[in-house]
């Protein structure tokens, strides 16, 4: 990079970056936020930030990790904002609008115990796991994307695995309990 922000270079750069990586960046944000429309908005934000901060990228070969770093921060900012501003789930009937096919597919994809467990672990740990296991970032790339040292990234990943194991165990125990209750509620003995 030139070290000086040039709009022509930045425009060309972000176009190339988008063509190569927008799919995986969107997927990462979707996995972090679990809302397709929000993930699209954040992906858009991430590429705009990449455009604005194009001159901070030192080595073109680090562009992917750099872009993930931006997307990661965008995701954490959104998560933090949502913790400040409480969002209450809509519990009433939706009037005149059925769930989109997109949402139905996503709901199905996100309803597994693994997705629920992922949603329960701290977001930075979740990010580390997603980036390492699903987005194939190397150790160095992971550290850059998370904005921490290589050692810290590895430690975060270890904590994430521990958290995920516990969250999965809790999910499966709750599932088993619900299944047992359902079975008991519908058992022939109960209806006698």
């Amino acid at each position, binding site marked *: *990079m*030139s*070290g*000086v*922000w040039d*709009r022509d270079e*930045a*425009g*060309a750069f972000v*176009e190339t970056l988008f063509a190569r990586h*927008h*799919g995986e960046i*969107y*997927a990462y944000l979707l*996995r972090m936020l679990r809302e*397709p429309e929000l993930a*699209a908005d954040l*992906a*858009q934000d991430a590429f*705009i930030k990449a*455009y*604005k*901060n194009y*001159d901070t990228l*030192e*080595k073109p070969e*680090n562009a992917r990790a*750099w872009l993930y*770093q931006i997307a*990661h*921060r965008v995701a954490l900012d959104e998560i*933090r904002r949502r*913790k*400040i*501003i409480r969002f209450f789930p809509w519990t009433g009937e939706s009037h005149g609008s059925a769930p989109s096919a997109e949402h139905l597919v996503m709901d199905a*994809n996100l309803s597994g115990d*693994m997705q629920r467990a*992922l949603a329960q672990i701290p977001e*930075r740990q979740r990010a580390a*796991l997603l980036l*390492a*296991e*699903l987005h194939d970032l190397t150790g160095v790339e992971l*550290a*850059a994307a*998370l*904005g*921490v*040292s290589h*050692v*810290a990234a*590895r*430690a975060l*990943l*270890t904590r994430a*695995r*521990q958290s995920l*194991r516990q969250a*999965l*165990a809790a999910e499966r125990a709750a599932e088993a309990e619900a299944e047992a209750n359902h079975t008991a509620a519908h058992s022939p003995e109960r209806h006698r």
Partner: protein
Amino acid sequence: MSRLSRAARRRVGRERHDWSSAHERARLRAAERLDTSLEPTEAAWLQEHLAGCDACRSIADAYEADRLALRDLRGTTLPPPRDLWARTSAAIERDAAAHGLGQPGTPSGASGRTRRLPALGVLSGMAVIAVVVGISVISGGFLGQPPITALGQPPATQPAVDPGSSLPPPRPTPIAVGAGNVDWFGTDGQGNLAYSTTGVREVCAHDQRPDCAPVFDPNARRVSIDARPKSIFRSPVENQAVVVGTDAAGDDVVFVIALPTADPTPGVSAPPTTDPTESATPPTASPATQSSGTPAPTRSSLPSSTPPPTPTASPTDSPSGPATTEPTTPTPSSPDPMVSPEPTMATAVAIVSGVRIVGQSAAYSPDGAWFAFTARPSDDSVGPDIYVWRVGDALARPLTTDHASVFASWAGLQMLGSRPVSSDDATAEVQSTSFLIDPHSGMETPLAGAGWRPVIDPTGQWAIVWEGTVRREADGLTTVPATGALILRRFQPTAVPYPTDGAYPTDVAYPTDVVDGEFREYDVRWDQSGSWLAVWLADMSDPAIGRLSLLHLDPATGTLDQPPGAPRDVAALPGFSISDGRIAWATPPGQGGEGSRIQIVAWTADAVGGVESVPIEDVVVVR
């Protein structure tokens, strides 16, 4: 091998040797081995343990199964919306138009491609700033920099101030700044302790460090004291300092000295070539601000040199006796120092001895009337207590007697302390409590939900605090962070307790993780504005070396960011100074027997730059 190299190796191979059980060790290693190769001996030990432990083997298998299940999610995402690029490019164009930077879609460049217009005029403005002449602005903007999340090693996009790091293309240097003086003690070529001070008027961008010649004090003053200084704290209102040193018996001693009064020579750089005047700052540049106003020493504020019998519980008084200061002899590493003709007499008087100073949190009160610190008896008979010395008194005195309390920071003219909740199990992780404590009476006011060792900014709005459990070290005396995080959050001492389930009141900014990774001892200090802070984390294996980072806070929003060029996780000895638009610290000694260097980073509203000193032996930065 240098200490730094050893420290780096230790960091890479960081180990925990205080396992509560072999099972804990095995389960952690079972998780770690998914992402890294264990050392052969550790891998062998793990295999042996798993072979004989069904529970641990089950957990290890679960890690493997979880990993496979996680990877099964690869096909469960949705494709991005088809109009994502159209939305993105339109947003860029709207942003550009809003900033008045031209019409969207202006063709340019050799490719004739439709170009998107830049959005941040500020950024482009920053790029062409050649020399920034201005006053020290402590609440600078640095627009466009993404906020940080947590500290670690320097990410690829934000190199630390490290001459050996990967360097971006050069920008014009130097940068004129109006930063305050930097003071330090070090040993000259003859092994004599010397006091130096220098103004900081110009710095160089982090990629241009060679353009700034090393700084030094041509009027360095020799100081004679009967202890080796470890940390030095300058009064914010007087030309005196509290020195924590080690006496001949190896015990810590805390004494007060009047700092030498030789006039500092602001902005003097060591002549790199033949003309020593080339690198000197023009006299018309932004005048440096004296770091403390430096009035003449007030003799009456020093304690009596023959203190009365101590009222303290454990320490004994042993005055260090007088100290003298005189000009230094030129040293090989201090090019062409000028010698001040008149030596300055100073007095060093012990305010406490027979103790071991605990932690790095010692500090003067904002009005300079008190000095607070944590100490425990040097015989390690009991744990730490909070001590306070009223300027002018003969001795410091303990304010707590529970042998478990530590000084955290000053909150205005009140002190903040913390102590762990008592537990029957000395090794258990426990919660902690914090309290306000009046330096006059020692009266405590418990605080709800203040965490461990809250360090309050000078405006009283924000705190860096360890939120989590603490535990005792193996010595049974030292309390260290255990499980949790060092976070930034609003300081609301009268607020109701924070809920522990992760839900925070909506009127309180969600805490921001400041630090990631393991650490035990740490030191957090704010500048006077409350907009800049620095965090030093001791190395897990060698607490005599740590990592230092400089952060900028937007007090209105609680957003932390780190401007390019600000130090991030740079190796630093304990004890740094942050004030008046600059931060200064000492690097660990270099390889080949080279001494430490003082590193100074100063900032304006638009730029951050640094300069360093020549190598100095046994250097201690005056905080």
